[in-house]
């Protein structure tokens, strides 16, 4: 049967992945100084035109696009060309890196020390690096690491140095530049700094894009940036930003290079350095400004154990192959290529699809540790047994058993699981628990979430008794931290979970109805998860089929005629899957007719109230990330509209639509009337 063959291709278990190699091991046995001074002769791009960082700046300043825009700006503003040019030059000065091998050597030395202290192992797939090495020789390369921690920043450079490969230049947010000394150090290790937003600034845009393109075309160095734009505070992949990706793909579209290789890199941390910081940020405590003194104060994190890091260099993706039959490059034939222009719709769609597929590749090769599975189970337990006191916790043996069950399921679904095979299952579970002792505690054979640190950062007043809000806040920090681990596994289960939720809410088990319901959920959640936006019906069907296939494979679902039937054994699986989405389903029911800026805090305060009254069970609805995504989804679905009024932007709510949306969502969960009353 033809469809069988298709299914086999789709089976994620058959995906081949490389083995890992610990690089710290060698470092522990030999001199770091020697390592810092090692002979470094990387393989370079075959068509490299060697030039210094200063020459590079000069090339950019004299490039055609820059000249064009300078003239344009000068005409528009009436300022002399030279003045505008100086401005451009200043922008470039502020932006440009000053990559220096000596600084990199110093960092390599320092990072080495830090890594050995913080981590048990730093594992990488050497085959991936070999593929990368070949790619670097053949075509300009763009490195696209996932972004979960500040650590990502120099980790890749460190690895490239270790393996004698061309050092990347890294697009970094301007915030780093403000750091005394460190900013300059980063600059000298290859970082270049870009403003977070420069929408309307033509000159800035052209300097920036030309700077990146010049480095790419000349093969100056691999270019590294974060597709997600910023660190993901929730450990879920963020929807990718397309601007920079478009810039690095454009030289191919315009025929300036034969091809560009995009290399997704998945960096997975067993324990993220910024763990509790993220949770606080999500709860509305502003992100601490990046300062050098702040960094020095954060030294205390150095004394803790953060487990291991896995870095997986994915297979290089050829932009040429990705654009094949998707993009007619002739569209660039009729206009001089140096005149900047908005990418066509065709181009935008392609860039967006490529971005999403790259993020999915990153997700796919993220290494999952046992704790991730345990966190999922612990949170579900918490949500499902709210009547029970949180102090009661979950039986350790039960947790071990369920974790093992989940391990099996995850493997079936193709998860990239790093399970310590050398120790017993209970050993693996308890070692995970001890690594995350800040979030869970074990006592009397029961595992429960830690109570949380009541003292909010900065307020040192243990004397006064905590208010209920403070207690709630403390709990929420722990829950959100756990959620950030659970989130790491979401991508594995997401599609089957959507089917499970759809099955639950659909009026019947007829395939079409389940599909419709699946479709609806997809639309609602496409800001929350990496679900390709603007996907065609065919894409939906493919994903739906894929999800069904997985469920059928594991014997949890039968497809009879036109019905989808849950098997006896599948009830457990499906309920697990459904519960996985529950926090999101619940969280999305919050919507409010408040002005945009106020939205997040207002929803939060509302959520605090309903949580305290016990009518909403989901701590995660306190997360600003979830709230923002929910708002974006509401706007996308035309439920909420931005209205520009006298006092800034307010949101007007289409009450009818909200009700219908909430009703549909309620199909999945027992929603709270109180919520709707507010809408």
């Amino acid at each position, binding site marked *: 049967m033809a469809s069988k063959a298709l299914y086999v291709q789709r089976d994620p278990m058959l995906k081949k992945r490389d083995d890992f190699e610990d690089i710290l091991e060698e470092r522990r046995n030999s001199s770091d100084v020697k390592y810092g001074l090692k002979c470094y002769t990387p393989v370079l791009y075959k068509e490299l035109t060697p030039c210094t960082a200063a020459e590079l700046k000069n090339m950019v300043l004299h490039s055609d696009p820059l000249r064009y825009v300078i003239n344009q700006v000068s005409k528009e503003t009436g300022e002399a060309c030279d003045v505008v040019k100086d401005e451009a030059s200043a922008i470039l000065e502020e932006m440009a890196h000053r990559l220096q091998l000596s600084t990199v050597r110093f960092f390599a030395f320092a990072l080495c020390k830090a890594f050995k202290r913080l981590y048990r192992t730093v594992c990488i797939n050497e085959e991936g690096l070999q593929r990368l090495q070949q790619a670097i020789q053949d075509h300009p390369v763009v490195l696209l690491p996932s972004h979960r921690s500040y650590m990502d920043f120099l980790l890749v450079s460190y690895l490239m140095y270790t393996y004698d490969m061309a050092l990347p230049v890294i697009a970094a947010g301007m915030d780093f530049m403000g750091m005394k000394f460190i900013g300059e150090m980063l600059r000298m290790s290859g970082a270049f700094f870009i403003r977070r937003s420069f929408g309307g600034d033509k000159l800035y845009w052209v300097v920036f894009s030309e700077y990146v393109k010049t480095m790419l075309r000349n093969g100056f160095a691999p270019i590294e940036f974060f597709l997600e734009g910023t660190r993901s505070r929730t450990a879920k992949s963020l929807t990718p930003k397309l601007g920079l990706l478009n810039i690095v793909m454009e030289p191919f579209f315009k025929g*300036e290079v034969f091809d560009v290789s995009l290399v997704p890199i998945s960096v997975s941390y067993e324990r993220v350095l910024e763990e509790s910081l993220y949770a606080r940020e999500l709860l509305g405590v502003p992100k601490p400004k990046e300062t050098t003194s702040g960094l020095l104060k954060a030294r205390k994190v150095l004394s803790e154990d953060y487990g291991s890091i896995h870095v997986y260099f994915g297979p290089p993706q050829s932009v040429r192959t990705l654009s094949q039959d998707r993009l007619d490059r002739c569209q660039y034939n009729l206009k001089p290529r140096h005149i900047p222009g908005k990418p066509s719709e065709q181009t935008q769609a392609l860039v967006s699809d490529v971005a999403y597929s790259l993020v999915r590749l990153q997700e796919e090769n993220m290494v999952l540790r046992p704790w991730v599975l345990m966190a999922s189970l612990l949170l579900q337990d918490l949500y499902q047994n709210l009547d029970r006191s949180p102090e009661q916790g979950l039986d350790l043996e039960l947790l071990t058993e369920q974790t093992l069950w989940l391990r099996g399921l995850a493997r079936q679904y193709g998860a990239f699981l790093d399970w310590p095979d050398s120790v017993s299952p209970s050993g693996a579970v308890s070692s995970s628990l001890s690594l995350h002792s800040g979030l869970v505690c074990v006592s009397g054979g029961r595992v429960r979430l830690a109570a949380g640190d009541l003292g909010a950062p900065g307020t040192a007043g243990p004397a006064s008794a905590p208010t209920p809000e403070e207690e709630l806040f403390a709990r929420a920090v722990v829950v959100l931290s756990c959620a950030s681990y659970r989130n790491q596994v979401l991508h594995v289960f997401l599609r089957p979970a959507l089917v499970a939720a759809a099955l639950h809410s659909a009026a019947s088990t007829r395939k079409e109805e389940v599909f419709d319901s699946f479709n609806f959920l997809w639309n609602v959640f496409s800001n929350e998860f990496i679900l390709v936006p603007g996907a065609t019906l065919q894409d939906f069907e493919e994903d739906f089929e894929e999800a069904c296939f997985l469920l059928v494979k594991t014997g949890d679902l039968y497809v009879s005629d036109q019905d989808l039937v849950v098997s006896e054994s599948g009830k457990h699986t499906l309920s697990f899957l459904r519960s996985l989405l529950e926090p999101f389903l619940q969280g999305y029911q919050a919507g409010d007719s408040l002005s945009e800026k106020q939205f997040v805090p207002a929803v939060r305060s509302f959520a605090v109230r309903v949580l305290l009254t016990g009518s909403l069970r989901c701590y995660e609805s306190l997360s600003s990330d979830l709230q923002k995504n929910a708002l974006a989804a509401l706007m996308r679905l035309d439920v909420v509209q931005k209205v520009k009024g006298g006092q800034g932007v307010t949101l007007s709510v289409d009450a009818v639509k909200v009700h219908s949306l909430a009703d549909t969502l309620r199909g999945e969960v027992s929603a709270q009337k109180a919520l709707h009353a507010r809408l």
Partner: protein
Amino acid sequence: MASDSSTERHQIALQRLRIIAGHLQNPVDEDSGINAIECNAEDSRPSSKNTRTVPRRRQEIMKWNGWGYSDTKFYFNKKGQAEFTGKRYRLSGLILPGLKDWFEGTFEANVLHKTPAVPTLNASAVQPPCLNEAFIEELKTTGIPFTHDAEDRVFRAHGHCAHEIFALREGRFGRVPDMVVWPNSHDDVVTIVELACKHNVCLMPYGGGTSVSSALECPPEENRCIVSLDTSQMNRILWIDEKNLTAHVEAGIIGQDLERLLNESGYCTGHEPDSMEFSSLGGWVATRASGMKKNVYGNIEDLVVHVKMVTPRGVIEKSCQGPRMSTGPDVHHFILGSEGTLGVVTEVTMKIRPVPEYQKYGSVVFPNFEQGVACLREVAKQRCAPASIRLMDNEQFQFGHALKPQVSSIFTSFVDGLKSFYITKVKGFDPHHLCVATLLFEGDREKVLQHEKQVYDIASKFGGLAAGEDNGQRGYMLTFVIAYLRDLGMDHSVIGESFETSVPWDRVLDICRNVKERIVRECKDKGVQFAPLSTCRVTQTYDAGACVYFYFAFNYRGLSDPVHVFEQVEHGAREEILANGGSLSHHHGVGKLRKEWMKESISKVGMGMLKSVKDYVDPENIFGNRNLL
């Protein structure tokens, strides 16, 4: 004074004649006496006293399954050295000691490994002609010679695309014309076209047979009798107008004859496409040909003053010979590039020029291709391009080296050694990056020398070093022998082709790099086991862009269907050209090979315009070669 200059001109003409004869020695024509079997009437029409290169029966002097003259070819002799046979070219009879190593090194081939062609044309393998008896009956009464001899038909069933030659070498023939007619004049053509319309016969004009666009392939779906209308006997210069500097010529004349005959009167057209030994004036018009010296003389569309074409609707021509007209869209432009789909070009009035007093070759070595292109761009910008300027990339430069004949004197080889020492060691050019531009200057002596200096001055700004006349001359000679080299390749399992495009200046470097790389990658993807030769040269400069020529060839050992692989690679390369802002063709034309891209090249409306012209001029599709549209 006047007589002085005219004798001087005569002197120059003679000298030039010698130059051309140097590489284009023409054989004695034995045309008279040999008639096609079916010829009823003795050819009684007035014929020019001048001898002509191409006889009615082409097989007498030309290969049936390869390029050019039967007596001329490359082969590896018993010692394994490459030799060029015959007496027609400067290289003829010489040994090329470097070719074997280059060949074996480039293609990872072995000269001992042979893939010989079928030795003779097996007439019985040719499908029997499908004849229209009524048409033949009436044709007989006109006395126009014709034949349905298998060999003659096979000769007119193909151009020189790699796949066409490959099939011939294997003795495979597809659909071939059912008969061949040889009109002797414009009036003959009018008669033939009228008869064809009357009897619904498909006509396919045939000039020199040098097409590289599958234009001469018979559409396999054509059920009517296909008649190949061979214009080769319409080869007279009807008059020369010295006051207006024009010549009225029958369209069947081939390039070398036209040039030779005009030279005898002290004139030239200056139109020298690489195929000029065999291609015809009518063919140039029908494909919008371009000559190597277009910088001085212009391309065919600049040279044509008046054209006469016979169509099923009648004869189209302008009423006067005004040098430029504003009379609506220029009807000449329906004819130029019509590729035989509308009618037969029978007579052309063409601009002529006095033969130039002085001709000088030259060459410049650049440290790399980028610098070379920058120099050509500057030359074009200053509008001081010599008659011809061509830039070869490094691979072609090395190839050119492999074609150096054995040097007789120790001194020459010593000088050569010194030259290369100077360029690579003293000047520090990387032998794997340097590239060479070949130049040809024409005009009066003083101006040529002045012009030469100007060009060399520009070149030196881009790091170019003058590299002597010899290198330049050899570069141009290669143009004529390269087609013979492809046959040598095919004898040793190497298949190759050249193709061209035109592209704006700012994209020249990008297109060269990307197309060359695409070829390499396509070969790899399609399972070619050896790295291909993938090289290019910039052959023409314009104000707004350049013409780029690509050559590619690969060793097809181990491939079950080399032609198919070859076609896929070529297809990929053309897609790459279009994606990089190159045109579908600069001068080879579209034919049937590149038809699929016509719509995207000229838009749907453009296609509609061409179609409506075709529908009006030839509603019955008498000119049914199905090129272009």
